[in-house]
C-alpha cells in the first residue's frame, strides 16, 4: 500500500511499508550503500510524517519480509499477543511515541512487550530524538539471572573481555585478573576465541571456570565460539555456563551465520540440561549489529535498523541472560562516523529494551571509522543515563585480538562513579569481601593471588 506526505511544498510517495521505513530512517551509510536511503533531507522528513500517521495495526497486516519465505517473520507474527497489544491497538506510530513519553510506566511497558513487534519499535525509534530514546528506555525494567542478578534498577554491569591474539590461557587469565581488580566481570567473563575449534574453546572454558571457582566469583563465564562448537564442547563435558551466538534479523542472515531457530533451541536445551545456574536459568548470550544482514546480502531491501530490531525477536524467543549490539564494529560502510554510531547505539538499546531484552551495548569503533574516544564517552554517558544493562570492559579499551576499541575497565568505573550505578548485588558483595576498595595502588590483594589463576 502506498504512503505519502507533503513537506516543504513537495509531495513524496512511498510505494510500500519497507520503502517508507527506509526513507524515514535518519541518515546512515549502510542504507545509502544499499540504495534505499532517502535522496534528500525533505524526503526523509516526509517519510517520518507519513510513518507517524501510520496505524500500528498496519504492521500486523503487511510484513516487510514475506511470511512464507522467512522464519523470523513467522516467529514475529505467530508469537504476537493481541491481548497485550489491545491498550495501543488504536494508536498510530506517532501516537505510540507520545504515549511512551507521557504515559508509559515500567509496569505498563512490561505488560506491553508481547504486543509489540520489532517493526513497531523500529518505526517509533525513527521519529525519536536521542533524548526520547534515552527517556523511554530509562523507563524499561528487564532483569535476568544465572549466578547473579543482572539489570536491577540503579545497577550497571560489565562484561570482562580478556581477549588474546593466540588464545594463550595465561594471557587471558592476566587480563581477567586486571579486570576483576577494577571491578569488572559481573555480566560475564567472556572471551572471543581467535580460533573457533573445539580444542581451543574447551581449553579456555576449563581455564575460565577454574579462575571463577578458585576466586569464588558469583558470575558466569563464556567462550564466544560458534553455537555448533559450543554444543560439541558440551558433549565433551566442558563447563559451559552460557551459549553464545551472533544472530541477525532475517532467515538468510542467520543462514550466513550458520544457524536457524531450531539450532538455537537445541543449544538452549543443552545448556539448561547442565543446570549450572544458581540464582536463575537464563543461559543464552546473543550479539547483533546494524549492517550484518546487508554485509551478508540478506537484507531484502529493508533498512538496517529495522532488520536489527527483528534480530531481537530471535533473541527474546530464547530468554537470554545478555544481548548486546556491537554497534561500531561492523564498519564505516554501515555506520560512517561517531554521530551515526551514537544514534544507532541508542536506537538498538531502545528497541531491545522495549521488546524486553537485557540490552547491553559494545560501545566501540574501528580505526577506519570517523570516530574516537570522545564519541565513545558521549555514547557511554548517554547509554548509562538510558539505563543500559551492561557494557564491555577491555584492558585499556584496546582489543588486541579483534583490533578495535571498546570501553575499558576505567570507563566502567567512570560511568558507575559519575551516575552512582553499582554492580550486580552478588558481585558487589564479592568485591567488598575481596578488600579491593582498600587495596594499595599496585599490590594485588592476597585473596586474588595470581597463582590461583595459574599465573606463576
Amino acid at each position: 500500500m502506498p504512503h505519502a506526505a507533503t513537506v516543504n511544498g513537495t509531495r513524496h510517495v512511498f510505494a510500500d511499508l519497507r520503502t517508507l521505513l527506509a526513507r524515514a530512517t535518519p541518515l546512515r551509510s549502510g542504507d545509502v550503500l544499499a540504495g534505499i536511503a532517502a535522496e534528500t533531507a525533505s524526503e526523509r522528513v516526509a517519510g517520518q510524517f507519513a510513518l507517524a500517521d501510520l496505524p500500528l495495526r498496519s504492521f500486523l497486516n503487511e510484513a516487510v519480509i514475506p511470511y512464507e519465505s522467512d522464519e523470523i517473520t513467522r516467529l514475529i507474527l505467530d508469537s504476537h499477543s493481541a491481548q497485550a497489544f489491545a491498550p495501543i491497538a488504536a494508536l498510530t506510530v506517532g501516537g505510540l511515541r507520545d504515549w511512551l513519553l507521557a504515559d508509559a510506566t515500567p509496569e505498563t511497558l512490561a505488560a506491553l512487550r508481547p504486543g509489540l513487534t520489532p517493526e513497531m519499535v523500529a518505526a517509533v525509534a525513527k521519529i525519536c530524538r536521542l533524548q526520547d530514546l534515552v527517556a523511554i528506555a530509562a523507563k524499561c525494567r528487564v532483569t535476568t539471572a544465572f549466578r547473579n542478578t543482572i539489570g536491577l534498577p540503579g545497577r550497571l554491569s560489565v562484561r570482562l573481555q580478556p581477549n588474546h591474539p593466540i588464545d594463550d590461557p595465561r594471557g587471558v587469565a592476566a587480563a581477567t585478573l586486571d579486570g576483576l581488580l577494577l571491578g569488572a566481570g559481573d555480566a560475564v567473563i567472556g572471551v572471543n576465541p581467535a580460533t573457533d575449534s573445539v580444542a581451543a574453546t574447551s581449553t579456555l572454558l576449563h581455564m575460565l571456570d577454574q579462575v571463577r571457582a578458585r576466586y569464588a566469583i558469583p558470575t558466569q563465564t563464556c567462550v564466544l565460539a560458534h553455537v555448533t562448537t559450543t554444543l560439541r564442547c558440551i558433549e565433551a563435558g566442558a563447563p559451559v555456563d552460557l551459549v553464545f551466538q551472533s544472530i541477525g534479523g532475517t532467515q538468510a542472515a542467520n543462514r550466513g551465520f550458520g544457524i536457524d531457530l531450531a539450532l538455537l533451541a537445541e543449544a538452549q536445551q543443552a545448556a539448561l540440561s547442565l543446570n549450572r545456574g544458581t540464582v536463575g536459568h537464563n543461559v543464552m548470550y546473543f550479539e547483533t549489529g546494524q549492517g550484518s544482514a546487508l554485509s551478508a546480502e540478506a537484507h531484502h531491501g529493508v533498512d538496517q535498523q529495522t532488520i536489527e530490531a527483528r534480530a531481537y525477536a530471535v533473541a527474546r524467543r530464547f530468554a537470554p541472560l545478555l544481548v548486546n549490539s556491537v554497534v561500531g564494529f561492523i564498519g564505516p560502510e554501515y555506520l560512517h562516523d561517531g554521530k551515526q554510531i551514537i544514534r544507532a547505539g541508542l536506537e538498538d538499546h531502545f528497541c531491545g529494551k522495549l521488546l524486553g531484552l537485557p540490552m547491553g551495548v559494545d560501545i566501540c569503533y574501528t580505526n577506519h571509522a570517523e570516530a574516537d574516544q570522545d564519541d565513545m564517552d558521549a555514547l557511554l554517558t548517554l547509554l548509562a543515563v538510558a539505563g543500559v544493562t551492561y557494557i564491555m570492559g577491555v584492558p585499556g579499551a584496546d582489543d588486541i585480538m579483534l583490533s578495535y576499541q571498546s570501553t575499558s575497565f576505567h570507563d566502567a568505573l567512570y560511568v558507575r562513579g559519575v551516575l552512582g550505578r553499582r554492580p550486580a548485588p552478588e558481585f558487589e558483595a564479592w568485591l567488598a569481601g575481596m578488600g579491593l576498595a582498600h587495596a594499595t595502588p599496585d599490590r594485588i590483594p592476597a585473596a586474588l593471588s595470581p597463582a590461583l589463576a595459574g599465573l606463576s
Partner: protein
Amino acid sequence: MPPPRPVQPPVLLPPPVLWRDLRRFTPARLALGRVGHGLPTAAHLDFQAAHAAARDAVHAALDAPRLCADLAAAGLSSVTVRSACPDRRTYLLRPDLGRRLADHQPLPPCPAIAFVVSDGLSATAAQRHAAPLLGLVMPALGQSGPVVIARQGRVALGDAIAAAMGAEAVAVLIGERPGLSAPDSLGVYLTWAPRPGRTDAERNCISNIRPEGLAIPAAADKLLWLIARMRRLRVTGIALKDEQPARVDEERKDVLF
C-alpha cells in the same frame, strides 16, 4: 640449513605479586594505574598516539613508485592499476567500487599465479612487507612478475585483475584493518580459478603478517605450502584446510613473554 639455535637458559622471574607483573603474560594494556576513575595522563596519551598511528595508516597513500622500485630491487617487475574508487573516502564507504577495476586499465597476460599488492586499509603494511614477502615467494615459483600494484583495492579486486590476465589463481597481498597494537599488518588471500563473484569462503587467508606477528619468512613458507596444496587439489577455500605442520614459533613467544 641454518645452524641450530643455542639453547637459551630460561629467564627466571619471581612469581607475579605486583599488578604490573601481569604485563609479562600479554601485550594487552594491563596495570595502567588510576587517577580517580580515569587513566593517568601518560597512559591516556599513549593510547592517543597509538590511535593516531592507526588513523594515519588508514589514510596514508601507497607510494607506488617506491614499491615498484623495492620490487625491482628484488628482481620483480610490476604494473600499477587502480580500482573504481577515486579517493579514500569513497573507498571506505563503497566496498562495491573497491572490488571493480577503473576503466581502461591495461594488464599483461599471466597464465600462472597473479600476484596483486593492494593498499587495502593499511598502505603502511603493503609498503613495508609486500616486496620482502614476494621477494621470497615468487622466485621459488619461477616467476619474476609482473606484480600488479592496485590502489584503493578490496580483496575481490584481485578476481577482476586475475580474470583480465587469464591467471589460474590469484594471491592478493593487502593491508589489514589497523589495530592500535598493529598498524602495519599484512594479509594474503589466495583464490583458485578467480573470477568476479567469488566469495570469501572460496579463499584461503594468511593474516597478521608483520615482524611482531607472523614473520615474513614464516609467511612465505605458509603461502608456498598453500600454493602447492592448491595446485594439487585445484581448489581454495573451506575445501583446502591449512594443515601445514606447526613450527615452534620461538620468535613470537619472545615477544609475548
